[in-house]
C-alpha cells in the first residue's frame, strides 16, 4: 500500500509546481499590493489579508525565472509559516492533486541551480512532472 499525499498545484509558465496542501492557507486573486522600497527584489510588497499584513514573494523571481509579462494577472498562494502567513505570487492556479509516494523521485543531479535547495522532489504524473517545493525554504530569502 502506498501513502498518498495531496498537493496544491500551480503554474509558472508551462511548469507545474506543488505545495503541501496542508501548508496552503488560501488562494487570493488580485490584491492591492503595497510596494516596499529597499526590500529584496524577490519581495513584491505587502497585502492586507483581512487585517493581517502578508508579505508577497514573487515565486518567479524566487526560482530565478524570467518575470511574467504584464498581461498576466498573478495569483496569491498564501502559505502558513512560523512567522505568519506569506504569499507566493504564481501565474495560474491548478487543481489539488492526490499523488502516490511511488511516483516520487529526488530532483536529478543535473539540477544544480540555486533553486535546487527549494525543490524537495518531483512526482512523475502521467501527463507531466509535478515539482514539489519546500515552503519553509521558499519563504526564507537568500542574503543579498
Amino acid at each position, binding site marked *: 500500500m502506498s501513502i498518498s499525499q495531496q498537493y496544491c498545484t500551480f503554474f509558472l509558465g508551462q511548469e507545474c509546481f506543488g505545495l503541501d496542501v496542508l501548508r496552503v492557507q488560501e488562494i487570493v486573486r488580485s490584491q*492591492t499590493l*503595497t*510596494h*516596499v*522600497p*529597499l*526590500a*529584496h527584489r524577490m*519581495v513584491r510588497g*505587502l*497585502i*492586507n489579508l483581512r*487585517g493581517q*499584513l*502578508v*508579505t508577497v*514573494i514573487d515565486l518567479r523571481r524566487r526560482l530565478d525565472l524570467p518575470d511574467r509579462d504584464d498581461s498576466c494577472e498573478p495569483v496569491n498562494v498564501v502559505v502558513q509559516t512560523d*512567522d*505568519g502567513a*506569506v504569499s507566493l505570487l504564481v501565474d495560474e492556479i491548478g487543481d489539488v492533486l492526490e499523488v502516490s509516494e511511488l511516483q516520487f523521485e529526488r530532483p536529478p543531479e543535473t539540477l544544480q541551480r540555486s533553486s535546487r535547495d527549494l525543490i524537495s522532489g518531483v512526482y512523475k504524473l502521467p501527463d507531466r512532472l509535478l515539482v514539489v517545493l519546500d515552503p519553509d525554504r521558499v*519563504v*526564507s*530569502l537568500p542574503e543579498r
Partner: protein
Amino acid sequence: MSNNEIFSEFLQETHENLALLDSDLILLETNPGEKSTLAQVFRTLHSIKGTAGFLGFVKLQDVAHSAESLLSRLRSGEMQFKETVATVLLQVVDAIREMLVSIESTGKEGPADYTGLIARVDSLKMTGGAAAPSAPSPAPVFNSPAPVINSAISVLQFASSPQAPSDTLVMPANDEPSTSRSGTSDMATGDGSEVRTSSAADSNIRVDVGLLDKLMNLVGELVLSRNQILQYSDSHEDNGFLAAVQRLDLLISELQAAVMKTRMQPIGSVLNRFPRIVRDQALVCGKKVRLEISGQETELDRTLIEAIRDPLVHMVRNAIDHGIEAPAVRLSRGKQEEGRLRIDAFHEGGKVIVEITDDGGGIDIARLREKALQSELLAPDVIAKMTHTELLRLIFLPGFSTADRVTQTSGRGVGMDVVLTNIERIGGTVDIESTPGKETTIRTKIPLTLAIIPALIVSCGGEQYAVPQVSLLELVRLEPDQAKRGVERMHGVPVYRLRDAMLPLLFLDEQLEIESDRSPDDEVNIVVLQADDRPFGLVVDSIRDTEEIVVKPLQKQIKGIPVFAGAAIMGDGRISLVLDVLGLARRANVISGAKNHAISDLAPSEKEEEVETEPVLLFASCAGGQMAIPLSLVSRLEEFPRGTVESLGSRQVVQYCGGILPLIDVSHELEQLRLRGSGVPAASVASVPARDEVESITVIVYTAGDQQAGLMVGNVLDIIHEHIVARSRANRPGVLFTAVVQERVTEFVDVPLLVRESLFDVIQSTT
C-alpha cells in the same frame, strides 16, 4: 488541573511572593516593631515552603524552612529584627529566586548548595536571640472587621486544594491564607484567623498577557473596520443605518478605551523593587540613603513598564553611586548624613513623567569638560563651545564616564547612553538638570502606550507612508516660486534655511530609491523631523493627514530594512509603511555614530553659540560661493592687473612690495585639499583659467610671520561685525565651519591651513 499548570501557577505565585518579601523586609528593617508585616513575611515564606514541599522541591523547602523558623523566633519576640537579620533573610529571598529561575528553565532546583546559607540562618537564630530583649506583645494584631466571613472563606479554600486553584479565577497569592499542608509544628494555631481583609482580592482575576495582547490587536482592527464603515456610511441616506453606525462608533470607542485600560499597569510594579535596590546599592557604596517614592499608582502600558524597568534601575544606581556623597562628606558640607533619593511618577501632557532626584553633589561641569577632553571622544574646539545643557548631556555619550574607579555597578562608561537609547526606542526622552552641590534631577518622559500611535500620513511615489508624530517638529510648505530659492545646495547637499538655521534636507524618494511624482516646478513639502536631537527636513510629494495607527511588525523577509519601523493598515484598508525616523536619519548620515554633530549644535533655537565676534571679511570665491575669513588675518586688499601675474613652477605669483607674493586661488585650493584628502592625486595645473577675460584680479594679502600669501578671490563683498552663529560643521578640509551670513550660506576658510598646504605644494613643485 495538569501538573504543568500547577507548576506554572506555583512559579508565578512565588515570584510575586518574593517581590512582596523584598519590600516587606525593607519595611521591617526601618520599622522593626511592625508586627503585621512580620506576620505577613512569615505567612508568605510559609506558603512558599508548603507548596515547595508539595511539589517535591526539597532544597527550596529546606531554605524556606530555616528562614521560617528564624522568623517564628522574631515573631514570638525572642529576637529583634536587625540589619543582620534583614541581610540574611534577603539572601534567602535571593536563593529562592535563584532556584525558581532554575526550576523554570530546567524543572530542577539547580546544583547550587545552600547549606551554608541555612547554617548562617540557624546560627543567627541561636545567637541573635540572646542579645535581644523580649518584646512585650508577641501576638500580632489584625484589624479584621468580618472575621467570621473571612474564616469561612479560608475554610472553603482549605476544602478546595489551595495549591491547585481553578485555572481562571485566582486570588492574588499574598492574600491566600497560609495552610498547614507541610505539617510543621511551628505553624501557630491562630493562623487560620490571620486572613487579611482585602476587597481587591475578590474582584481580581489573573489573565494571560498573550490574551490581552490579542484582544488589543483585535480591538485595533475593529477600530479600523469601524472607520471603513464610517467612510462608507457617508454616502448613505438611510437614517436607521446611520443611527446604527453612530452607535457602533461610540461603542467601539468605548471598548477601545476599556481594552487599553486592561493593559495599563500602575508603575508601582516597577517602583516597588526600588527599596531593595536602593538598600543594596547604598550598602555596597557605604552610603546612607532614604528613598521616597510618590505616584506609584500612575498607570502606563505594560509593555512600557517592562521597557523602562532596566533604565530606571540604572539611573537609580547611578544616583546613589555618583550622586549622593559618602556620609562624612555630606556632614562636612552641612547636609544631613542620610542622602535623599526621590522617585516621582506622574502624568503630564499625555505622557508619563518619572523624575529621579538626589540631593547629592550634583554634576561637576568642570570635571565633565575635563573628562571629555581626556576621553578624546570630542574635538577640543567642540567642547570649548558647549553650553551648560550640552555639557550635561555628555553623560549620554557612549564610552563616557566620570567615575574614577570601576565598581560592580557603575563606572564602565556604558550606561547612560544605553538608558537614553532604550528610552528613545519607546518614544521617550531623558532630560537632566543639575545644581552643583545641591541636587541632580533626571527626568524621563514616556508615552502612555505604544499600541496606537498618532502618525502623519505623507505620500511619495504614489504610496503612502506614516511618520510617527513623536519625532515630528513642524511642517513647511514652499510654494513653487519660493521652492526654487528656498532649497539651496551646499556643496551638493540640499539644505533649507529654517528661521536662519540650516536644516539638512532628505528627499524621501531618493532615500527609498523610488520614483517621485514631484516635478521641479511643484511646491515643496518639508516634514521637519527630529532624530536624536538633530532636526532634519524630509521632502515628500504631499502631506495627507494625521491618523491613529496600529503599528504591526514586518515579517522577516522585509524586517531588515532600517528605514521602516513596521506597517499599519489604514482606515481605507490600504497599507502604509511606518517610517523609522532614527533609521532614516542614520541611513542618510544625518546622525553619525559618534554623535559629535548632534552635540555641537544641539537645540540651536534654545541657545545659540557665539563663536565669532570679531569682524570678518566676506567675499565671493572664484567659483561663486560666499566665504569669509577673520579680518585680523587680512593685511591688505589688492587689485593686480592681469598682466602682472607671472608663473613660478606650477604656481602663480606677483611681485609685491619688493618681494614675490605666491597666489592661492581659494576655491581651487579647497578643491585640491578635498581631492588630496580623498586620496586622489592633486592636479598640477594651476588656477586662473576662467578669468582670462577679466582685467584684474582681487587678492587678499595674508601675512603670518615672514611669510606672505595672496588669496585670489572673485570679489570682496563686505566687512561685517555681527555675531556669527555656527550652524553646521564643515564638510570639507580647509573650512572651519559654515554659517548663515547676510542670508547666505557662508564657508569660513581656515586660512593658515590653506596657506600651509598650498605653499608646501610650491616648495614641492619648485625643488
